[in-house]
């Protein structure tokens, strides 16, 4: 940075806005930029658009040449028919139970642990926090087998408990980190004022910090919701009976086109995908802000 020299403000102003119209090359650049953005958007949206389009086709149109993008007629009935092929609604219900419970656990425990690390002083805090950050880099495969055996001895196999309970123990290093970073931005005056009024740490956490923390907890909730909704390996390892499966696991059979047929497979996939798209559209603001807030950028 030492090489950057400084000019007086006036010179800077002249350089930035010359006062004339921008040259033609400026408009060409803009046009190229928009063109690039639009084509990239199309490339990124193709798989999803194809999923949506195929899910609404007649079976005969699925293999049409050239490919049909807008099905006619629009077969909403595929979404009903697929329910007769597999217990989609049952699986969807299971996914909801697991996801909501695990997200709840994540929010409660991450906000608690985050509060402890951000606001309370205790010996070893720095070392423990460093340990927490280190676990972010720990591949979970090493712990998977013993955890599996432990849950077997607890008789938790083929229940939702292995997918839910761990979330209540901190809710993941990343989420704790996120919450803690947010607590650090709240002035300690709030805590001090409450303490003078006789509040203890638990009241400060529950009555003052939780409400102030709503934006970051929303971000954590969305991260956690998406993560658990999409999770595949956990349910694969722990759930065996057909009526216990989550939707992600149940749809495994749909990757193989022999079970149903492509248009029905896509309709099934849409049941899993659509809630995520909706959540993302409504939660997008919090989502992106959440990432910005981690401050991984500064340090």
């Amino acid at each position, binding site marked *: 940075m030492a090489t950057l020299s400084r000019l007086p403000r006036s010179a800077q102003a002249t350089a930035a806005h010359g006062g004339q119209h921008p040259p033609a090359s400026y408009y060409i650049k803009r046009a190229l*930029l928009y063109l690039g953005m639009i084509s990239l958007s199309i490339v990124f949206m193709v798989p999803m658009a194809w999923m949506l389009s195929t899910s609404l086709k007649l079976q005969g149109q699925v293999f049409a040449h050239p490919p049909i993008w807008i099905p006619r007629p629009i077969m909403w009935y595929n979404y009903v028919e697929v329910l007769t092929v597999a217990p989609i609604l049952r699986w969807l219900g299971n996914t909801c139970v697991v996801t909501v419970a695990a997200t709840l656990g994540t929010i409660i425990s991450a906000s608690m642990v985050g509060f402890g690390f951000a606001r309370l002083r205790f010996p070893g805090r720095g070392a423990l926090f460093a340990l927490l950050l280190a676990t972010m880099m720990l591949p979970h495969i090493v712990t998977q*087998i013993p955890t599996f055996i432990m849950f077997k001895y607890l008789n938790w196999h083929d229940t939702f408990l292995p997918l839910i309970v761990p979330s209540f123990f901190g809710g993941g290093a990343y989420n704790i980190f996120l919450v803690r970073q947010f607590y650090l931005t709240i002035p300690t005056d709030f805590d001090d004022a409450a303490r003078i009024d006789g509040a203890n740490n638990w009241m400060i956490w529950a009555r003052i910090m939780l409400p102030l923390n709503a934006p970051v907890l929303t971000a954590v909730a969305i991260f956690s919701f998406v993560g658990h909704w999409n999770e595949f390996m956990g349910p694969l390892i722990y759930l065996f009976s057909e009526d216990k499966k989550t939707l992600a696991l149940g749809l495994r059979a749909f990757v193989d086109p022999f079970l149903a047929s492509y248009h029905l497979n896509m309709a099934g996939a849409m049941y899993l995908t659509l809630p995520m798209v909706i959540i*993302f559209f409504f939660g997008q603001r919090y989502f992106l802000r959440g990432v910005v807030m981690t401050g991984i950028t500064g340090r």
Partner: protein
Amino acid sequence: MTTPGGAVSAGAPLVGRGKRRWSRLAMREARDGYLFVAPWLLGFALFTAGPMLASAVLALMRYNLFSPPVWVGLANIKKLVSDDIVWLSLWNTAYYTFLSVPLRLIASLVLALLCVQKIRFTAWFRTFFYLPSVTPAVAMAIVWFWILNPDVGLANTVLRAIGLPPSKWIWDPKTSKSTFVLMQMWTAGGNTMVIFLAGLQNIPQSLYEAAQIDGASGWAQFKNVTVPMLSPVILFNLVMGIIGSFQVFTGAFLMTAGGPANSTLFSVLYMYRLAFEQFEMGYASAFAWLLFLVILVFTLLQLRMSESWVYYEGG
């Protein structure tokens, strides 16, 4: 930082109060502190440290869940060394990682740079780029399976339309790994992009202004302002990308089951088979530890190498 009292009185704003009262307050604060972080501490012991230790012990045993474990010493490790599939799976995984991580980093940095341009509809573009990242892997696998179908799939239809020879994609050992690399650009690229976006937004605008006054071109600004200021984020994405890629599983499990000719048999997929299909818990644990050590070596290597290229503002 050894005693609770000391921890508080260092930099405490309330020095005026009596010493005894102070340390009682500090004690209570420390007690509450431990209680607040207790869920994570317990979780760390139960789901991280404990299992890691257990995994190391299991690696020296033979255990199939149904009969009691038998101590076999280093037999599993010897078996690992001579198991060709272990090395093949590591090779597949490394190939996938070293192709996919740099490509994804570059692509998502480009996307992030596009998204911070001063143009309209950036919120929409951002959404389009990010949406595949929240799409469940299973749903993605279902669509890709169909898009890549060599005979009737969309991918080959497009290739034929522009006069290129069709590919067998995941069904040909020569192209199968590269196809997975391609697919992960969709599904993971958005995540990486968002983190870059956050990093870009934290770069002070004044640095760019200063560079412009110096007459720095767009490329020079990118090279001398954006890259150094973004380097901690690049490192973060690099490290997390390598750790994640080394554990690639779901796509290959669902779409190729490791085939054709074991060309997409990635390490975690092989570990899954050993542990949860063949119930060789001991041998699978040994393999998990081997994979863990490989990842650890690469992570530490990255962190060590980063000292020469990552720029920290404060330090």
